[in-house]
């Protein structure tokens, strides 16, 4: 356990030394300035527009930054044979995996807290707290996915492409499912049936990220904390799936 915590600690230290948090801070400042511009051009509901712009753009931005950091950090470790060195010590592969996962999860929590602080002056605290906790779950899920993809692909380009494609699809899968079942389509055509089955299949295996981190929680007034129940449950279920998939690939690797 102490080795797992040590790996987690060094993962966080690496994030600090590569200035990831400074990058996130700079990005939040720039987006904050952008939100001021949006507030300036609006003729009504200026606060609502400012909050909506900052929340949506910050969410996309921090996901992008964290996934890229996880991917580049792991690829560097594979290329520098750091993984081989650690595994040559008395450390099981699962210990290394959980250590990295814990470190990236800690980084996700810090980034979610920074983003929530940026929104705290624009939206009610209860909404910001709900939004922030959901963002933390979303970031942890995405870092677990990126970790799994890097272990599988070992290269940044395919891993990051897969992660972002997955993210876009997972966030829009509910709407895509509605589109595939549109009454305008011919229900008897084999293409419609095939598309429907494919989309239904995808919706079953993808997490419904469209229900995470909603801007409405910030701008539409207080939402019940029970909405977080689905978010936490989905994070736990899918997170466990990604952990098992990542461990399977790591154990199967010839290192």
């Amino acid at each position, binding site marked *: 356990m102490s080795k797992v915590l040590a790996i987690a600690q060094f993962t966080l230290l690496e994030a600090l030394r590569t200035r990831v948090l400074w990058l996130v801070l700079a990005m939040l400042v720039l987006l904050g300035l952008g939100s001021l511009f*949006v*507030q300036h*051009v*609006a*003729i*009504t*509901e*200026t*606060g*609502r*527009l400012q909050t*909506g*712009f900052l*929340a*949506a753009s910050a*969410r996309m931005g921090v996901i992008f930054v964290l996934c890229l950091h996880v991917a580049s950090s792991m690829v560097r470790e594979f290329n520098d044979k750091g993984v081989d060195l650690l595994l040559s010590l008395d450390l099981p592969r699962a210990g290394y995996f959980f250590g990295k996962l814990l470190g990236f999860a800690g980084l996700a929590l810090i980034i979610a807290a920074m983003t929530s602080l940026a929104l705290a002056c624009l939206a009610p605290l209860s909404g910001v707290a709900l939004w922030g906790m959901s963002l933390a779950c979303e970031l942890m899920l995405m870092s677990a996915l990126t970790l799994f993809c890097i272990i599988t692909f070992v290269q940044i380009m395919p891993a990051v492409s897969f992660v972002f494609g997955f993210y*876009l699809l997972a*966030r*829009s899968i*509910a*709407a*895509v499912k*509605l*589109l595939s079942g*549109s009454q305008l389509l011919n229900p008897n055509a084999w293409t419609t049936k095939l598309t429907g089955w494919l989309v239904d299949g995808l919706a079953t295996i993808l997490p419904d*990220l*469209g*229900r*995470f*981190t*909603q*801007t*409405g929680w910030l*701008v*539409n007034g207080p939402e019940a904390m029970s909405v977080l129940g689905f978010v936490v449950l989905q994070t736990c279920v899918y997170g466990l799936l990604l952990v098992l998939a990542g461990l399977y690939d790591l154990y199967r690797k010839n290192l």
Partner: protein
Amino acid sequence: MLLLSQITFAAMQPRPTAAAQALRDAPPLPVLRASSLGDPIALAQGLTLYLQAFDNQPGISIPFLDMDYAKVQSWLARILELDPIGQYPLLMAAQVYGQVSDEAKQRKMIEFVESQFHADPNRRWPWLAHAAIMAKHRLHDLPLALRYAKLLREHATDSSVPTWARQMEIFLHEDMGEYESAKVMLGGLLHSGTVTDPHEIHFLMGRLEQLEAAEKSSSTSKKRLP
């Protein structure tokens, strides 16, 4: 050498010319929902600013009279479907697109406001109140204005709706010009705390000043006539 070639090539290109781009139909709602990546409110806000800025394209300004109001209406309706709580599209319909000097287009906008009022009367009542004033003073259609005032009385029943809004029928019967009516309504909105956004207050005050100037110039020209 290559840099000089690039500079020469760029200098030889014709200057860009501004060409007004017509407003397209709003995309279908399912497509917009899929594009919103699970965050329809953020997309609605982006589309609102896109529509607001559409009359000011790079190098050219399109008068509202030249815009296809059926398409404007479709965009406003889509934005409301994505974000039903937001009031921005209704302000644009009532206070921006409804202010053209084309009666058909004014009617289109206030009919849009009326159709959207029924979906959420206790939140959308200010726009129907404004539509009632427009119907009386711009369209000179007192029966339409009274019908809107009656809808306000019957459907905007929440305690947050101020009394003067529910009693608009009395207010419409009074012999007041549009400027006086708008001034009373803005005063009521400010007093009841319905309007608090400083940008919106600034915008509505600007509209009031335009109305005052328009009324003064029309009364001056009436005095000059023999």
